């Protein structure tokens, strides 16, 4: 129970201190710890067996101690920072050290569990059941702990569980009891002086905290992340403000989630009107490109997606909108702003005109088929100055082609979708958005997309509008007037003149305009193929809107940017590649190389390798895809991870247990393998459509659905590993440690590899490889081990 819970708590801690992309690394850490434990057992079987009763409590004890200590150990030699990884080489050492330090609790716990299985074979059934039931329980209990405790208190609490186990199986001598009692001091210190995650210097929270007299005025943790409010007298809200604005931008507190900007607590903004050149009555956002939709039309109903702290709600209310619907998946933030501190945003979410929903965007859409809105506003994409591609691995299901299709279906006849993008160079996000919209309009057989899309830009942002019906000449003139007043430039209008595109905001590289025109008027597919970055639309199969770098483009980019700079083009992607190398090397060094000491004897080794390699890759690829896909269904990565882990552990454990009653002959293996391949194919095609039918159901019911739906494939997958081991059990006994080693090594590596392949080719390909891997396993079943 503690092990799975610990895995999820590290995931949360790394999301707070760094970024979410370490999630798969944490899964690999746990796998590596267990894999290395298996190898260790193979090497030291005899001494461990001789001292089983002494070793077991020590391992539990060490597991508990390392759980409490790892959080502190990772900072001993300095704090690892993702942003410095490609700048300061000592960071590579820090990353590897942190990785190995986090692995320690898994190693000790893994060794203890494997030892019990190995030496108490007679009670394997009950041991296995309790192990899996505990693991599944751990995945669910941690979600509750996230709600009720601060993150930093959870590791010392979890550390107590293995220490209790150590106490239960302790050697009956006073000395060891004293050691355990003394060891309790370490978790106790963890409670008194908790080790909070050190937030990266390069996260937005730290920029705010550097302002004079800045302070954190509120802090609360939940499964959705760590919410913090920063108050500072010099913290102003004026994103990409018009240079014609002559007032003073409002000073406001900012809400951060996991150290990243979540929203400014703007509330109902009233222009102070103390400056003659500012039109009294305008909202501050009317002086940004975000004012465009209200300058073009007068919507009566507005849907704000991922509403955050309600800045767009405030804007809509300011324009007298009588029906504002806000959808924000961060329920903890909603509760805070709606019930606990509504005064922070002038009770915006409690206004009679406003309806707030705490749903994932796609979930809300699925439950509101009949709703029609005049204006749908999406959150601002990117950040001022760029994000260095840190979000490349994040699934953005609200920005896929399928999502925009749903938004378009929810528009009234004169409805519009509005998206604002921070300017980036080289241009990527704006072009990807445009490519997505072009695809959408192509689907509707629209031959004149420039009549349905308009955009304006200023020095920092571009706001795009897509209308259900063509924009009129009057609306185009209103846009021009809006631009003239604010010193903005039109970017897309059906009757645009080349000279009006950069009158106020000159672009040195005008090729951006050509790119925009190519996407609007030309062959979008040809453009997507020829552009150096991947700006093809994100889809539910490949929902990585912020991933633009392709492996093919790296050599070309290296010619233009130096090697120091290149990683900062898309840090998330490069980091995935670097961690893949690290994970592969760690698993080879810690799992495979030590096995050469015992040697690999026996016949048909290639078949053994193929069989277990297939299981390692197939199972983990399947698991990784499920976690990423179910973020769409369950809304939060932590819910998706916990549910998938619980479902797979429970059902594969049950399958494994059930397999002991079946003969491990070739026929059974081939039948089981074939069922798995078939199930992967069926799930790849039907799982999401099936789940989409229950998309709008309550979260707990959806978690239940996941547990039930994943049971069949996991059940059969759980049978293949013990079948394989039983096939080998009659042969030379060095085959078994190698089989476990190969499985562990490839499972560990597959976590990172699956992420890379999903980025490049989508989930469909990862699923196909998972099926292929099981096909190899099934094929190898023909030859593995002795005759049945």
């Amino acid at each position, binding site marked *: 129970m503690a092990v799975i819970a610990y895995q999820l708590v590290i995931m949360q801690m790394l999301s707070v201190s760094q970024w979410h992309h370490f999630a798969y690394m944490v899964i690999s850490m746990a796998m590596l710890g267990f894999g290395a434990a298996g190898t260790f057992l193979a090497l030291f079987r005899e001494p461990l067996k001789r001292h089983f009763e002494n070793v077991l409590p020590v391992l539990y004890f060490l597991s508990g101690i390392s759980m409490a200590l790892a959080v502190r150990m990772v900072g001993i030699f300095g704090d690892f920072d993702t942003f410095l990884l490609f700048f300061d080489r000592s960071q590579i050492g820090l990353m590897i050290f942190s990785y190995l330090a986090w692995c320690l609790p898994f190693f000790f716990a893994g060794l203890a569990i494997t030892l019990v299985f190995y030496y108490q074979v007679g009670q394997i059934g009950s041991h296995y059941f309790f192990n899996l039931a505990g693991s599944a329980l751990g995945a669910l209990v941690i979600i509750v702990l996230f709600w009720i405790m601060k993150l930093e208190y959870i590791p010392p609490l979890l550390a107590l569980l293995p220490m209790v186990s150590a106490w239960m199986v302790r050697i009956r001598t006073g000395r060891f009891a004293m050691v355990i009692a003394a060891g309790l001091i370490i978790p106790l210190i963890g409670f008194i002086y908790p080790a909070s995650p050190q937030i990266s210097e390069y996260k937005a929270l730290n920029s705010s905290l550097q302002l004079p007299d800045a302070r954190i005025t509120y802090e609360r943790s939940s499964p959705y992340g760590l919410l913090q409010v920063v108050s500072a007298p010099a913290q102003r809200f004026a994103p990409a403000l018009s240079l014609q604005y002559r007032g003073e931008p409002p000073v406001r507190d900012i809400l951060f989630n996991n150290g990243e900007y979540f929203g400014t607590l703007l509330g109902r903004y009233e222009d102070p009107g103390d400056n003659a050149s500012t039109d009294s009555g305008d909202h501050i956002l009317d002086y940004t490109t975000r004012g465009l939709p209200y300058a073009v039309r007068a919507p009566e109903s507005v849907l704000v997606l991922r509403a955050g702290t309600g800045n767009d709600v405030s804007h809509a209310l300011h324009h007298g909108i009588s029906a504002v619907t806000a959808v924000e998946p961060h329920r903890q933030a909603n509760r805070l702003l709606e019930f606990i501190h509504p005064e922070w945003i002038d009770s915006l979410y409690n206004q009679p005109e406003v309806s707030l929903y705490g749903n994932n965007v796609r979930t809300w859409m699925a439950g509101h088929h009949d709703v029609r809105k005049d204006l749908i506003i999406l959150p601002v994409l990117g950040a001022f100055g760029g994000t260095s591609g840190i979000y490349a691995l994040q699934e953005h299901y609200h920005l896929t082609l399928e999502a925009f299709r749903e938004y378009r279906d929810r528009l009234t006849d004169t409805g519009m979708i509005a998206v604002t993008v921070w300017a980036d160079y080289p241009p990527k996000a704006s072009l990807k958005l445009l490519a997505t919209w072009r695809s959408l309009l192509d689907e509707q057989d629209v031959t004149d997309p420039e009549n349905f899309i308009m955009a304006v830009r200023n020095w920092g942002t571009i706001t795009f509008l897509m209308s259900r019906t063509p924009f009129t000449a009057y609306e185009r003139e209103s846009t021009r007037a809006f631009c003239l007043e604010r010193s903005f430039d039109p970017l897309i209008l059906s009757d645009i003149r080349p000279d009006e595109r950069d009158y106020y905001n000159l672009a040195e590289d005008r090729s951006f305009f050509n790119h925009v025109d190519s996407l609007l008027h030309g062959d979008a597919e040809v453009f997507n193929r*020829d552009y150096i970055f991947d700006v093809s639309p994100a889809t539910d199969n490949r929902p990585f809107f912020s991933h633009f770098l392709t492996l*093919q483009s790296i050599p070309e980019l290296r010619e233009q940017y130096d090697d120091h700079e290149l990683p900062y083009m898309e840090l998330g992607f490069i980091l995935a590649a670097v961690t893949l190398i690290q994970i592969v090397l760690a698993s080879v060094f810690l799992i495979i190389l030590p096995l050469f000491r015992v040697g690999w004897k026996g016949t048909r080794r290639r078949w053994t390798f193929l069989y277990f390699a297939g299981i390692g890759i197939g199972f983990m690829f399947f698991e990784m895809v499920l976690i990423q896909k179910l973020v769409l269904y369950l809304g939060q990565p932590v819910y998706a991870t916990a549910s998938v882990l619980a479902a797979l552990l429970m059902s594969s454990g049950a399958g494994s247990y059930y397999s002991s009653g079946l003969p491990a002959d070739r026929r059974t293996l081939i039948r089981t393998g074939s069922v798995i391949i078939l199930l992967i194919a069926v799930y790849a095609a039907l799982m999401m459509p099936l789940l989409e039918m229950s998309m709008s159901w309550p979260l707990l019911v959806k978690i239940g659905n996941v547990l039930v739906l994943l049971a069949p494939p996991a059940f059969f997958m759980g049978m293949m590993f013990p079948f394989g081991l039983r096939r080998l059990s009659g042969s030379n006994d060095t085959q078994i440690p190698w089989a476990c080693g190969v499985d562990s090594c490839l499972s560990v590596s597959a976590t990172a590899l699956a992420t890379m392949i999903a980025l490049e080719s989508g989930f469909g390909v990862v699923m196909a490889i998972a099926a292929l891997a099981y096909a190899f396993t099934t094929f190898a079943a023909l030859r593995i081990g002795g005759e049945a």
Partner: protein
Amino acid sequence: MLTDSYFSSILLPVFILLLILLFTVPAVPPAFAETGSDDEEDQRYQRLREQMVNRQIIARGVEDRPTVNAMRSVPRHKFVQSGERRRAYMDSPLPIGYGQTISQPFIVAYMTQLINPEPGMKVLEIGTGSGYQAAVLAEITDQVFTIEIVEELGEWGRQNLRNAGYDKVQVKRADGYYGWEEHAPFDAIVVTAAADHIPPPLVEQLRDGGLMVIPVGSPFRTQNLMLVEKRGEDIRTRNLMPVRFVPFTREDE
């Protein structure tokens, strides 16, 4: 898509090798080592500075004489953290703590050149940081004013400027948003610590015909620069790309 995947699978190992190479190529010029007397050290820094100016600045098209001379004169190694001194003349930004960086030498030179610096010009800098940009400006004009909002950085920047002999630079620890009204109007404003908006008071404090330059970009990347030109009520911006100008679409073969 299938072809892409195959292509990727071939390129992946190549890419991994490239990354390994990236980490193994020496980051510090081998000619430099942190040993020797003060004089020898000064000479070594002088040599590195000369190399920096020739290879990173003149070779990339910064030819404004006062700017080039200033870059030759300012001891950049006195404006970085002690642990980063050996990297002071490298072609990259360097961290100075507080999530901030000192811009790469080329960007400092390019920004300086953009405001057409001349002796007697009144220049305001927003974001003192390490003080390096202010020092470069001070080599050209005596009227340099610099404001830093982060107290610790402001103090460190002030010390660096004093230690390097730039006593005339006026340093203030304050919110740069309001500019420095007593000394306004300014011929140029250099914003080295950009926020997500351009403060209206800074636009006000720019004299008619004045220029404001602002770097835009995330840490450790060559920034784009934004030039704000004020002509009466007409305020325009120009987005400038200091890196080599390249088409991002591939030519049809």
